[in-house]
């Protein structure tokens, strides 16, 4: 079942339709409601390996629906602490709960100040309106 459109206030957003939840020097990241809606029901998450370092703005994996494939871009830089196995096993989790059960990675931030450069919810909503 698809989730209703929402963009939580407490998250940081990347213009490539990724979100990050910052807690201390860790970030949980995923794709926004807009991204999952554009793709349709996800059927595959091509995930990176834990321990790998990702770099802000660069591609770390792919999400695929029946009809389309899309790169996923890291909103922050750092080492991957955990890949959400629940999404690897059941990618449709992202459609059902993009900001909760449908998270993709946990990352240890290489620069705790880096997320400050991301969009806040108002800026991201403005970006969506301007599309």
């Amino acid at each position: 079942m698809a989730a209703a459109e929402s963009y939580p206030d407490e998250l940081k957003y990347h213009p490539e339709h990724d979100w990050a939840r910052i807690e201390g020097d860790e970030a949980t990241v995923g794709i926004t409601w807009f991204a999952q809606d554009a793709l349709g029901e996800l059927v595959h998450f091509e995930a990176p390996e834990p321990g790998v370092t990702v770099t802000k703005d660069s591609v770390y994996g792919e999400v695929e629906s029946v009809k389309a494939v899309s790169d996923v871009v890291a909103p922050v830089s750092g080492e991957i602490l955990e890949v959400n196995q629940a999404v690897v096993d059941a990618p449709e989790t992202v459609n059902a709960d993009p900001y909760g059960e449908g998270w993709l990675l946990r990352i240890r931030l290489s620069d705790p100040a880096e997320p400050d450069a991301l969009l806040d919810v108002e800026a991201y909503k403005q970006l969506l309106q301007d599309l």
Partner: protein
Amino acid sequence: MQTLSRTPLHERHVAAGARLVPFAGWEMPVQYEGVIAEHRAVRTDCGVFDVSHMGEIHAEGPKARELLQALLSNDLDRLDDGDAQYTLLTDESGGIIDDLIAYRIDPHQYLLVVNAGNRQEVWDWMKEREIRGSEVRDASDEYGLLAVQGPRSIERLGLPEGKQFTHAMGEIDGIEVMVNRTGYTGEQGCELMCPAEDAVALWDAVVARGAVPCGLGARDTLRLEVCYPLHGNDITRETDAISAGLAWTCALDKDFTGAPALRRLKEDGPARKLVAFVMEEKAIPRAGMTIESGGEVTSGTHSPMLDKGIGLGYVPADRSMPGSALVIDVRGKKRRATVVPKPIYKPEEEPT
């Protein structure tokens, strides 16, 4: 920019919240609620597709049969009035201009339902080759066409049971339709043809009877699970019936355009064959991906019924036997697949 054509059901699709995409010059619904739910509806119950974008060509006259026998690969003489046949329009080298279904109305009247993207080319090709006593007429804009597919489709429509590959006039809630027992999903069902002005009423009636509106997304996953080729992907002017596993649609004992080339190919054996495969790893093959040792994926998707990546592709003939191991380049990653017998998915109740 090219203007997209719209079917008579366009307003219905918009009202239903369909996601519309350009397809073969048409603005068509790719999905309503979701591809997977629509796919399952067709496999378990009943779905309805607007396929009014497809072309309808009439071939008429005392020499219509002669014309079609010379142009189409299958043997029309196997048909009686009320029968239908899957067949190919081929060029001199055996290349596939289109795949289509021919319906015999009477000995002097045939209906050809052709792919939307090939409508003009098919019509041009046939018109140029018309013979005295035959007339080819593009009537595509005169008709609406709805594919109603799934194990409960006939029951939901209140139609009598009928044999696959037949057609008859019928009626759905007061709307007169041509009931064609054909489809593109591997399930029981029919395709209902009506005058374009009746299409909205027919759609409403079919939906009211419980058919789930389905888009082109599910149409593609459904046909791919049962390995029906898609023209433009799996079969083209550059491919031929023998390599594509469609020799059964070619009456090589009659003369039709390209028959000599196809006879030679059959005798020599094709270098490459179109095979069905299933991914052995989590990955979704897509059209255009390279298969190692000289092959290419022509169609690929995620199979909702198998929950795996599946596809069709051309591989060297010595790799085409079921069980053969393939390696597919999925955006730079080597992923294992195995050739499987067609169809990839077998519907539980075979169409009768």
